[in-house]
């Protein structure tokens, strides 16, 4: 790397050195936190550029996820850094030929700083998640990468973390290869909200693991909308000859807060929940929980009253529906009729 550093421009920059102190008028005022962030960015920028002599400023900016303007400001600041007349430290030197930049002297900042514990943790945990993800194609590469990152991070990566994501590998493998083939799929899919199994043609977009469950995100031609299909509810699957072609309006879901995010237009259901069924408030998104003596009064939003009926009837001994009246009537009618079936010996 050292040999490839162009020396020609060094003189030009030295010539300008006297003006360096005035180079950054108008740069943004920075608070303490921003100053630490910026310092980290600058210390990283020098070895980054050192490893890529003559890189386009625009390309470096895109790679480092900063604006080109910000990167140029950072370069201007680095340019004035160094210790004139002080031993081996010297000044940071660079050549900016129009759109390309080359570091010709690094002033000793030739390597990035070690990973912090949080950085090591974030990368290591995400890699372990990837490695454990069923149906992943390149487990081998992930595990090699993980070993190298752990090695480079040293002690800080020694955090004891274990990840296990059980799922049906075989089904996922089949689905993944179908998605990768880029074909539309014919699915037989069970919709729990309506308790029905339907046939549909979908244009696959991506596959996800959220909360330990695998999903296929696809444009559903039947619903004419983007849908998340739970892989364990895909009962049959056929790869079609036609290509997967999600329309432009097919936008991926934001799943950062979970797959099901209740919206205010959904119906509110109110329940009285005994101690042994309080766990439902951890499994389903609830709007409100109010204590009433030993019992909790829980409000939640549901997409479908039929689904609510199946869930709540099945929860059994400890849950009473308070409203809406329609759901209460439904529960009573269904339970009474169901019980009546057993009073006659046979149908």
């Amino acid at each position, binding site marked *: 790397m050292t040999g490839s550093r162009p020396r020609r421009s060094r003189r030009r920059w030295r010539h300008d050195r006297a003006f360096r102190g005035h180079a*950054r008028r108008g740069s943004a005022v*920075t608070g303490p936190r921003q*100053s*630490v962030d910026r*310092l980290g960015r600058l210390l*990283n920028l020098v070895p*980054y550029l050192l*490893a890529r002599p003559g890189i386009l400023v625009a390309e470096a900016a895109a790679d480092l996820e900063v604006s080109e303007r910000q990167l140029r400001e950072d370069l201007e*600041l680095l340019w004035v*850094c160094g*210790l004139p007349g002080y*031993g081996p*430290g010297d000044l940071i030197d660079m050549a900016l030929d129009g759109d390309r930049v080359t570091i010709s002297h690094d*002033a000793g900042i030739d*390597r*990035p*700083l*070690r*990973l*912090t514990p*949080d*950085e090591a*943790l*974030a*990368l290591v*945990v995400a890699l372990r998640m*990837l490695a454990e*993800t069923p149906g*992943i*194609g*390149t487990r081998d*590469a992930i595990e090699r990468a993980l070993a*190298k990152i752990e090695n*480079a991070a*040293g002690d800080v990566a020694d*955090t*004891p973390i274990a*990840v*296990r994501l059980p799922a049906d590998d075989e089904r996922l493998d089949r689905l993944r290869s179908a998605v990768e083939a880029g074909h539309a799929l014919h699915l037989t899919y069970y919709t729990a909200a309506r308790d029905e*199994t339907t046939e549909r043609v979908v244009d696959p977009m991506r*596959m*996800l693991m959220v*909360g*330990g469950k695998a999903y296929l995100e696809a444009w559903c031609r039947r619903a004419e909308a983007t849908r998340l299909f739970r892989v364990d509810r895909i009962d049959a699957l056929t790869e079609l000859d036609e290509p997967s072609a999600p329309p432009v309006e097919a936008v991926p879901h934001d*799943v950062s807060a979970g797959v099901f995010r209740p919206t205010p237009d959904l119906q509110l259901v109110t329940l009285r929940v005994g101690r042994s069924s*309080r766990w439902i408030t*951890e499994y389903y998104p609830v709007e409100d929980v109010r*204590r009433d003596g030993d019992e909790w009064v829980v409000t939640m939003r549901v997409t479908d009253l039929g689904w609510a*009926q199946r869930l709540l*009837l099945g929860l059994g001994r400890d849950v009473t*529906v308070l409203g809406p009246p329609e759901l209460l009537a439904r*529960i*009573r009618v*269904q339970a*009474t009729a*169901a*019980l*009546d079936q*057993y009073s006659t010996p046979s*149908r």
Partner: protein
Amino acid sequence: MSRTRTERLVNLVICLLSTRRFLTAAQIAATVPGYEHDPEDPRDHEAFQRKFERDKAELRELGVPLETGTASVFDQEPGYRIAHREYALPDIILEPDEAAAVGIAARLWQHAGLAAAASSGLAKLRAAGVEVDPQATLGVEPVVTVDPAFAPLTNAARDRRAVTFSYRVPEVDDPSTRRLEPWGVVCWQGRWYVVGHDRDRDATRCFRLSRIVGNVRAVGRPGAFTPPESVDLISHVARWSGPAARTGRATVTVKPGRAAGLRRWATETVPGPDGDRLTIPYADADGLADHIVGYGADVRAEGPPEVREAVIQRLKEVVARHDRIASPPVAPAVAS
């Protein structure tokens, strides 16, 4: 003061990286632009010292390994330096497929704090010469989320420091304060747990991170305990080791076209005069009974008796409970 603080800090790093011997504050002030002051003037000198302390703190916050020591045995004043070996990320050479995996991993975080850490970590790898293809995908991508207690607990487990936190279990009314020696953190079936030695119960316990209320506080010194040799963290959380064998066979009658969810599990379906007769394999009679009751009058359990009786019992309870709601005891209207 024309030089910014950031510039001064970069210069401080360059200065301390380039020295083998420890430099005193006075030597640093004489070298690094931005520290110029009159050491004879007490106020000026004090201002310099405050500035220098703040700058050292910022370097440490960033993870710069600032060493303290004295240049020789005759020196009283502390000096500073940065050992290049401690500062620099060790050489890391990633094959293209490995770099792609790291790039994807860094994108998975949905938790703001760790998402930032993942991308600054990735930036360091790029600075070490690793080329990351931002377009790469792996077919299946996990969405990585953690609870707020994740970072403090993993730090404490790494440092072997005890922690204390408030823990709320739904079945219990009030949160309780727990004291734990955390051995490690586990993700199992999409949920995070911490496993360790519970100091109050004097036993191994695991806690679900989503049930921790408020802050996790580290107590005592690092290295305060030693986890058992080759502890299998997962085994403490995963009491469920796979689906239980569905050895039972229940028979149910289902109205035509109804109960699609139950039909998915049937191993046999025989159409009959008043509906389809399904054979359902099951592991747990109570679990199956809950499921059947959910379908109300669409499904009738025929047998075996353990399933049929459980269904009838549940239905009786549901009817009794909801009858009370529908017709509350009427208080006689009293004229006052």
